[in-house]
C-alpha cells in the first residue's frame, strides 16, 4: 500500500482532496492525549493560583493562616521568581504581582499540593491584604488621562498617560477636513465592539518538571517558542535548558497564543521549588476570568462621498482597550487599523489608532486580531451611508469595492489574487440577495397585516483579511521548517506550526506529498517540541498554510529532487534510492526559511506600503428572523463565499469558514462578558453563552479559488481568521432589514436590541473622546 515498494513514488496528487485528517482516528477513539490526559509522572502534584480580588491596589501583606497545615503545600511568591517578567513585547507584565495589582484576577501566590482537595482549602487559607486604589475601567477615562494607571516601560507608549500605542495612517490629501468640505455627502458615526472570550472547549493546562538538563514543559498551546522564550527569560536560563512541547490541543483561537507562557512559568516555578512535576489545569471559571480576551474597540468614522456614492474621504479614529498590560496590543491595534478601511477604494484617508491601558485583565490575541472590530465599524458605516443615500448597501459596496490595480489605504497596490468583486457577486447570486430582499419585504408586510410579531431580514458584508504577519513581520521573523528523509523513503516534517484543530498536520502532509511524490501516509509530522523542530514562528495570523506551508513545500521538493536524482543516477525504487542516500550522507534534511515575495515592501516609520503579501476575501449573506416581542434573533441561514486561494483540503476550508462564522455570530448575538467594578459577573459556560447546534444557522458555503502565486499547493492563502471578520456586520445588517433598527454597538442581545428600539442606544451616544 505504500509508495516505497513501487518502482516510482506514488503520484500523490492529494492537494485539493478532502482526505481523512491524520489525527482523526486518535481523536474519535478518545486516545488522543490532551495535557490533562497524560499519565501522572512519579511524584506529580497539582498547582493552583491565588489571584487579586480587586482591579487595582497596593499589596500590603500576604498572610498564611497559621492554623492551616502548610507542611505539604508548596508556596511561591513574587520573590521566588528569578526575573519577574513575562517576556513578550513590552515586558511590562510580572509573572506574579509583587507590590501592586493592576487588574482583578492578577496572580499573586502559587500553591501546589499532592491532594487536590487540600489545595482548594489552602487557597482559602491565603489572606491578601490589599489597599484598593481607584481603578480605570473604561477607555474614555483612560484616554482622559487624569488617573494614569500604566507605567510605560523605557521606549514604550507615551509617558505619563495611559496610551500604550498610537499609529497614524494617511493617504492622498493632507487636509482631509478640507477635502470633506468639498464632498457632496458627509456622514459620521460611532461603532463599538465588546470583549469576547475564546472559549476553546479544552481549558488551559500545562505539565512541568525539572531535571539535570533544565526545565521541561508540555501543554496546550499554539506557540511553543513563545513559551520557550518566556521560560528562558523568567528563569534566566540558556535556550538549550528549556524544552517545550505541545500536547494535543483542544482549540486555541488566539487564546493559547501568548497566555500559556504565564501558566508555563507558574507551573515551572512550583515544580522547581517542590522538586516534583507539577500539573496545572484551569477550571472553566479561572480560565474565563484570568486569560486574555478580544480587545473592546470604539471606532469613530466620518466619510465623504460624491453625489453618486463614489467614496472620497475616510477619516477614522480607532480606540482599543489594552487591559492592564501590553501583551500583543500594538500588533492587534495595527492589524485593526490595517483592516479599518474595509474592502473599499478611498483616495483620501486619515486614520488614527490608539490603545489605552485600563485596570481590566489584559486583552490579547483572538482570531481576527483587531480586524473584526474595525470591519464591524466600516461595514456598519457603509450600511448607514447606503441608508443615508437611499440605496441598497450591496449596490454602494459593489460600486466602491477594491479590485485588482487599486491601492489600499496604506498605498498597497493590489497586484494579484483580488477576488472581492467575485465574492460579492457570488454572494448576491448564491443568496438571491435582490430577489430575497423583495420577497422578504413582501412577507414582512403580510405578517404585519396579520399582526404576527416575527420579521425576516437579509443583510450582507464584504471583507478581507491579510494573511501572514503585518508589514515587515515575516522578514524579521525568518520562519523556518525542515523535512527529513527517513529509511524506506518516508519523510518527516518538522515545524513549530501546531495543529490546534485547524488541521495543520494533515494539510502539511498534503502539501509535502504533492511536492515530492511520497504518499501522505508515509509522511510523519514531528510533535512540535522546541528541542526537535526549527522555529517556524507562531501559529497565528493565518500564516500557517500560506507562509510555513510554502516553506514545507520547498523542503519536501528539495528532498524529493535529491532522492530522484539518486534514483536516476543509480536506479532502484524511490525507497531504495532514499536508503542509499541516507547511507551515503548519514542524514538527509532540507531546512528552509521563509522568503516573502520580492515585491513586499513596508515602511514602519511612514506606516505605508504592502501591509500583507496578499488578502483573502469573503462575502457573508445572513438571513435572520427577529421576534419583535422578545427581540431574539434567529439566524436562519448564512451564505459564506470565501476566497481561499487554493483549497488544499476543501472540507477543512469549509470547516474553518463555518466555525469562524459561528464564532462571529456568537460575538454578535449572545456572547457578552458582563463587568461590575472590574470583575466578571458571568465566568461560566452557564452564563457566558456560545452558540449550540440549534442556534447555528444552516451554512451554504462556497469556496472561491483565486490563487496567490506565492502560496503553496498551487496558491493557497491564509483563511483561519477571515470568517471571524464579517459575520457580525452581516447579521446586524439583516437585523436592520428585519426591524429597521440600526445597531452600531455589539452585542445585539435581546436587551440591547430592545433598548435600541426605544432609541436609547443612539449610534453616537456612548463615547466621544474628541469632544
Amino acid at each position: 500500500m505504500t509508495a516505497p515498494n513501487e518502482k516510482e513514488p506514488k503520484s500523490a496528487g492529494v492537494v485539493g482532496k478532502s482526505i481523512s485528517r491524520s489525527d482523526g482516528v486518535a481523536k474519535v477513539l478518545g486516545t488522543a492525549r490532551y495535557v490533562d490526559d497524560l499519565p501522572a509522572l512519579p511524584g506529580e502534584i497539582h498547582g493552583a493560583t491565588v489571584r487579586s480580588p480587586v482591579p487595582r491596589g497596593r499589596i500590603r501583606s500576604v498572610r498564611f493562616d497559621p492554623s492551616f497545615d502548610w507542611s505539604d503545600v508548596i508556596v511561591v511568591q513574587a520573590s521566588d521568581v528569578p526575573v519577574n517578567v513575562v517576556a513578550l513585547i513590552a515586558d511590562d507584565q510580572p509573572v506574579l504581582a509583587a507590590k501592586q495589582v493592576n487588574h482583578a484576577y492578577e496572580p499573586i501566590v502559587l500553591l501546589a499540593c499532592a491532594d487536590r482537595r487540600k489545595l482548594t482549602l489552602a487557597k482559602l487559607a491565603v489572606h491578601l491584604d490589599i489597599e484598593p486604589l481607584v481603578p480605570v475601567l473604561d477607555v474614555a477615562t483612560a484616554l482622559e488621562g487624569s488617573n494614569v494607571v500604566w507605567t510605560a516601560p523605557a521606549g514604550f507608549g507615551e509617558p505619563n498617560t495611559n496610551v500604550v500605542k498610537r499609529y497614524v495612517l494617511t493617504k492622498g490629501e493632507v487636509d482631509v477636513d478640507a477635502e470633506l468640505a468639498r464632498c457632496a455627502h458627509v456622514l459620521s458615526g460611532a461603532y463599538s465592539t465588546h470583549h469576547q472570550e475564546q472559549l476553546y472547549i479544552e481549558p488551559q493546562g500545562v505539565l512541568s518538571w525539572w531535571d539535570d538538563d533544565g526545565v521541561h514543559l508540555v501543554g496546550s498551546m499554539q506557540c511553543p517558542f513563545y513559551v520557550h522564550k518566556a521560560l528562558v527569560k523568567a528563569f534566566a536560563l540558556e535556550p538549550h535548558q528549556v524544552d517545550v512541547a505541545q500536547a494535543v490541543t483542544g482549540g486555541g483561537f488566539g487564546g493559547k497564543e501568548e497566555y500559556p507562557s504565564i501558566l508555563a512559568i507558574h507551573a515551572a516555578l512550583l515544580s522547581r521549588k517542590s522538586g516534583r512535576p507539577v500539573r496545572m489545569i484551569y477550571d472553566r471559571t479561572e480560565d474565563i476570568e484570568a486569560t486574555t480576551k478580544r480587545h473592546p474597540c470604539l471606532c469613530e468614522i466620518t466619510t465623504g462621498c460624491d453625489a453618486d456614492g463614489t467614496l472620497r474621504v475616510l477619516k477614522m479614529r480607532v480606540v482599543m482597550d489594552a487591559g492592564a498590560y501590553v501583551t500583543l496590543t500594538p500588533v492587534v491595534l495595527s492589524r485593526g487599523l490595517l483592516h479599518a478601511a474595509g474592502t473599499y477604494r478611498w483616495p483620501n484617508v486619515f486614520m488614527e489608532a490608539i490603545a489605552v491601558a485600563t485596570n481590566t485583565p489584559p486583552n490579547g490575541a483572538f482570531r481576527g486580531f483587531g480586524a473584526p472590530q474595525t470591519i464591524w465599524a466600516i461595514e456598519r458605516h457603509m450600511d448607514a451611508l447606503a441608508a443615508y443615500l437611499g440605496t441598497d448597501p450591496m449596490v454602494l459596496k459593489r460600486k466602491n469595492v477594491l479590485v485588482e490595480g487599486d491601492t489600499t489605504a496604506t498605498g498597497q497596490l493590489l497586484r494579484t489574487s483580488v477576488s472581492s468583486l467575485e465574492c460579492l457577486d457570488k454572494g448576491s447570486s448564491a443568496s438571491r440577495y435582490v430577489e430575497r430582499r423583495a420577497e422578504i419585504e413582501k412577507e414582512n408586510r403580510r405578517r404585519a397585516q396579520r399582526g404576527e410579531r416575527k420579521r425576516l431580514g437579509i443583510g450582507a458584508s464584504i471583507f478581507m483579511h491579510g494573511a501572514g504577519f503585518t508589514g515587515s513581520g515575516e522578514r524579521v521573523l525568518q520562519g523556518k521548517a525542515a523535512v527529513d528523509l527517513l529509511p524506506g523513503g518516508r519523510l518527516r516534517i518538522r515545524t513549530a506550526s501546531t495543529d490546534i484543530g485547524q488541521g495543520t498536520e494533515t494539510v502539511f502532509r498534503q502539501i509535502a506529498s504533492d511536492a515530492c511524490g511520497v504518499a501522505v501516509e508515509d509522511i510523519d509530522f514531528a510533535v512540535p517540541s522546541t528541542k526537535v523542530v526549527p522555529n517556524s514562528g507562531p501559529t497565528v495570523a493565518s500564516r500557517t498554510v500560506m507562509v510555513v506551508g510554502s516553506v514545507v513545500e520547498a523542503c519536501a521538493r528539495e528532498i524529493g529532487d535529491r532522492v530522484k536524482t539518486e534514483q536516476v543516477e543509480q536506479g532502484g525504487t524511490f525507497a531504495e534510492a532514499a536508503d542509499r542516500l541516507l547511507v551515503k550522507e548519514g542524514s538527509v534534511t532540507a531546512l528552509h526559511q521563509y522568503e516573502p515575495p520580492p515585491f513586499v515592501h513596508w515602511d514602519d516609520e511612514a506606516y505605508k506600503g504592502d501591509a500583507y503579501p496578499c488578502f483573502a476575501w469573503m462575502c457573508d449573506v445572513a438571513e435572520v428572523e427577529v421576534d419583535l416581542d422578545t427581540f431574539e434573533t434567529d439566524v436562519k441561514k448564512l451564505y459564506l463565499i470565501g476566497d481561499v486561494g487554493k483549497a488544499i483540503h476543501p472540507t477543512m476550508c469549509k470547516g474553518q469558514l463555518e466555525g469562524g462564522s459561528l464564532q462571529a455570530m456568537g460575538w454578535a448575538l449572545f456572547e457578552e462578558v458582563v463587568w461590575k467594578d472590574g470583575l466578571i459577573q458571568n465566568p461560566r459556560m452557564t452564563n457566558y453563552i456560545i452558540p449550540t447546534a440549534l442556534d447555528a444557522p444552516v451554512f451554504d458555503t462556497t469556496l472561491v479559488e483565486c490563487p496567490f502565486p506565492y502560496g503553496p499547493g498551487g496558491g493557497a492563502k491564509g483563511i483561519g481568521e477571515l470568517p471571524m471578520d464579517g459575520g457580525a456586520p452581516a447579521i446586524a445588517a439583516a437585523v436592520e432589514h428585519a426591524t429597521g433598527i440600526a445597531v452600531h454597538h455589539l452585542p445585539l442581545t435581546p436587551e440591547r436590541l430592545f433598548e435600541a428600539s426605544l432609541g436609547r442606544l443612539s449610534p453616537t451616544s456612548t463615547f466621544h473622546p474628541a469632544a
Partner: protein
Amino acid sequence: MLIRFRLNGETREIDVAPMRRLLDVLRLDLRLTGTKEGCGEGECGSCTVLLDGDAVNACMVVIGQCDGREITSVEGLGSEKHLAPIQRAFVTDGGAQCGICTPGVLVAAESLLRRNAAPSDEQIREALAGNLCRCTGYERIVESVRVAAVERATLARSKTSNGSPASQRGTKSGAPQ
C-alpha cells in the same frame, strides 16, 4: 463502597466513595481519558457518556448512581481496526477538528442513531444541542452524523443478507486514503 456496573460491555467492580463524580472515576481510577472535562457543570457536554443507553454528563453523575447499570464511553464505540460508523464519519467528513468535544458528541450521536436510524437534520441538531463545539460551526458535525446514519443502514442491510458485516467493515479504514 463497592460499586458494580458494566462499562463498555465489561463488568467492573470498584471500591470508591459513592459521591465521586463518574467523570473522575472514569478518568482517574479507570484511566479512560477519552471522556473530557470542559466545564464541570453540565453545560459543555464534553463528558457525555451513555447510562443505560441515555446520554448523560459524567460530571453531573455520581458513581453511586451507577451501581448495577450499563455505561458506554467513547472507548466503547469502536476500536482502531473497527471504527464505528459514527467514528469513521467524523474522521472523513470534518466532524472532528480540535477533537476535545468529539468523544462527547460521538456518544450523543450514537445514542441518537440507536433510537432513530434516519434522523432529520433538525433531530440531529436537537440531539447534539447539549454538546458545545467551538471549532466546526456544527455543519460538518451534522453532515458526519448524516453520513454515519447511511453507513449504519448499509451495514445493517449487509448484516441481514450476509450474516456478518465484518467484510464491509474491513474495506474502509480510518487511515488516510
